[in-house]
């Protein structure tokens, strides 16, 4: 069996908006979701900015009782799913548990709960650590909490492939629907703003002191963000039958591993990843209108990503629009590629490409068209969503405007 797979619902919870409409409006206006970090004390750090979601009110989506029982990452992913269900006009209660999948990507899992436990451990001793919280720490709980919240069974997995995790989840959901194992998949990613991630990136000197400027000559690094994003995937026939709005079709995806270094991305691995995606989907480089870049804003990432794009696209590399919405949101870890996938779907649906903001000085190492500072209205027929990760776990998903 081989079925066409389409995206029929989007749910996003980001620092630039909760729900796809607000998110998209701010994205194409080139707004920034970056602000002073407030969720923990940053006074003894040399960095203090991040992409926290300041107005996220979990109570709008989940009961107080549930909120006490789960970390923020689970809350973000459930909120994103609720928004996606509303968007696609489906009642979760009507789904067939034998033919559904929940696949969620994450980098840090329920890191916030670890952070509470670790603090209590140091300050008050092990005996005082709350046993209830201990059972709430594992990463698999992101999809488990989601399944329990909606009483939805089926295939239920967390794919913790760090910053490419959202794409991995979408890719596996695509496989499951294509081959007929499930008829409905909730796929995406979530990560809460994490002290551990903030500490780590600060210590690696990978973090900017103020703004994130992907592809700019003077780029000073990434910024940590948070978010949740969910795409609803289903087979084309079922979308047509229920008259659902189709954002885009997923043609396929490519994976690769750098097998090189835990934190330094390799141009070779990225090149192979994009090539694998093109090979699987049969799409030619000239057919691609938009690349949603991994574009973290670090010197190394952006340079290597541009080399890879040039390796694959040759002359066409200067004609394809490549933007990084991390310039606006920061790096939302495991949620990032899920959010970027939602942005690809919106770009295809609206024929608008979101910009790379904070772009001032061209860098000869990054001589691609990064859609600087202003969104662009242009036909978007095929979009690539690039995502790379710690460990060199690369992924690239191909979205296409739906045609009969």
């Amino acid at each position, binding site marked *: 069996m081989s079925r066409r797979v389409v995206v029929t619902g989007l749910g996003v919870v980001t620092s630039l908006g909760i729900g796809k409409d607000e998110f998209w409006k701010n994205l194409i206006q080139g707004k920034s979701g970056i602000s002073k970090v407030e969720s923990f004390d940053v006074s*003894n*750090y040399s960095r203090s900015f991040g992409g926290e979601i300041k107005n996220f009110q979990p109570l709008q989506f989940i009961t107080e009782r549930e909120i006490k029982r789960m970390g923020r990452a689970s809350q973000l992913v459930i909120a994103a799913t609720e928004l996606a269900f509303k968007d696609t006009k489906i009642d979760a209660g009507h789904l067939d*548990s034998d033919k559904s999948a*929940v696949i969620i990507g*994450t980098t*840090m*899992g329920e890191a916030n709960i*670890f952070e509470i*436990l*670790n603090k209590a*451990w*140091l300050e008050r001793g*092990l*005996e005082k*650590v709350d*046993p209830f919280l*201990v*059972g709430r720490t*594992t*990463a*698999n709980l992101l*999809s*488990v909490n989601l*399944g*329990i919240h*909606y*009483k*939805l*069974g*089926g295939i*239920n*997995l*967390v*794919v*913790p*492939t*760090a910053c490419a995790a959202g794409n991995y989840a979408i890719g596996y959901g695509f*496989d499951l629907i294509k081959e007929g194992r499930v008829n409905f998949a909730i796929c995406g990613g979530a990560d809460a703003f994490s*002290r*551990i991630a903030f*500490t*780590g*990136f600060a*210590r*690696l000197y990978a973090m900017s002191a103020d703004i994130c400027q992907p592809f700019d000559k003077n780029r000073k690094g990434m910024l940590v963000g948070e978010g949740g994003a969910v795409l609803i995937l289903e087979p084309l026939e079922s979308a047509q039958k229920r008259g659902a709005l189709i954002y885009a079709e997923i043609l396929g995806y490519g*994976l*690769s*591993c*750098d*097998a090189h*270094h*835990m*934190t330094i991305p390799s141009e070779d691995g990225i090149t*192979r990843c994009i090539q*694998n995606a093109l090979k699987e989907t049969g799409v030619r480089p000239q057919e691609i209108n938009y690349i949603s870049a991994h574009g973290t804003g670090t010197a190394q990432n952006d340079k290597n990503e541009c080399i890879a794009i040039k390796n694959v696209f040759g002359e066409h590399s200067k004609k394809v629009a490549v933007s990084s919405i991390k310039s606006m949101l920061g790096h939302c870890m495991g949620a990032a590629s899920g959010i970027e996938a939602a942005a690809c779907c919106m770009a295809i649906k609206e024929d608008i490409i979101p910009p790379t903001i904070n772009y001032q000085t061209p860098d000869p190492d990054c001589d691609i068209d990064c859609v600087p500072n202003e969104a662009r209205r242009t036909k978007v027929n095929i979009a690539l969503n690039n995502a790379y*990760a*710690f*460990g*060199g*776990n690369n992924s690239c998903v191909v979205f296409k405007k739906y045609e009969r």
Partner: protein
Amino acid sequence: MKDKIVITGIGVLSSIGIGKDAFWQALEEGKSGVKPVTLFDTSKLKVKMGAEISDFNPGAILGEKGLRNLDRATKLLLCTGKLALDDARLEIDDINSNAIGISIGTTVGSLWSISEFDKSALRDGPHFVNPAEFPNTVINSPPSQLAIRLKSKGPCATISSGFTSSLDAIKYGIDLIRNRRAQIVLAGGVEEFCEQTYLGFYKVNFLAGVKGPELSCPFDQRRNGVILGEGSAILVLESEESAKKRGVDIYSHILGFGTHFYPYAINKYEPQGKGLKKAMKFALEDAGASAEDIDYISCAANSMQDADAIETASIKEVFGKKAEEISVTATKSMLGETFSAAGVLAAAATVGAINKDFLPPTINYAQKDPVCDLDCVAVKSRAARINKAVVNAFGPSGSNSCILIGK
């Protein structure tokens, strides 16, 4: 036509043996990996036992180079990968590296690293953390380090689904092969033994020794919790065609897979085993097999009061009359509960049982429980021919997976 998937290599690091031959022999002898914990202090706890890999010396397997900043889970997995590759007579070079993938199940493999990194920042200040230890805090670190070590450049995936992680990772690996994303996949799982995980299981009242004897005694009336263990296993998977082309021996076929998450509650077993029954049925369907075809079941039974009874009742319902004839083993009686690694360790044990014609025992079995009345191969292994076997994994938060392995 789906590719037939075969196992052509096995790497095991367990508390009862390192390397598949030692592991299989220990299973046949009914060895126990449970002993007093040495890796951290348990004097303030009511429990003292664990199934550690006590003679673990990564340098002996990998050489001393490049191990300094790696955590225990990563070292376990790197050693396992090396053993699996050698066993499969697979050399990764520039020509085949893009075709070699990795799919590993782990859930708390990086827990120690996450916790120590965070505590170091809190204690000493964020400027004093060791940046080389930050990459260990991501959950996909052990599989990614394995890819770096082996120079395998195909897809590298990590799966976290709690107790079923490594069986789910095997299925993800099978799908990588069938979808032509990789030709050969190293699939398995790893969990390390560490204070944080031990205390976690202790705090949620899952450990044996508080309400009864500190013993891993699945199906036995005295069971009262798990003995936590550690381990890692990798199966080298490829299509039958690929194995033939490489001219390597085939240990077993993977005939089918079934999974079903049943939404119930966190850290509580759903009493009727609804998800587990579905997972077993789906696996049989996927393999085109019937209950009559199954000779042996490697159980997930872990010495928890409810888990073992639920698995027994579920097997009886799915296999009907045949359940009376099927022998079942709880390898966790020897290995302890290795969480995400448990599924693949049970699979590696089952491949041994199929190839060496024996039924691994359920050790520590002494007092019969009427709600666990299957033939659990009590205490001593038995000689038997196995054609088709089922391997179960399930956990208290709703995940259930099952694979079917054949000669």
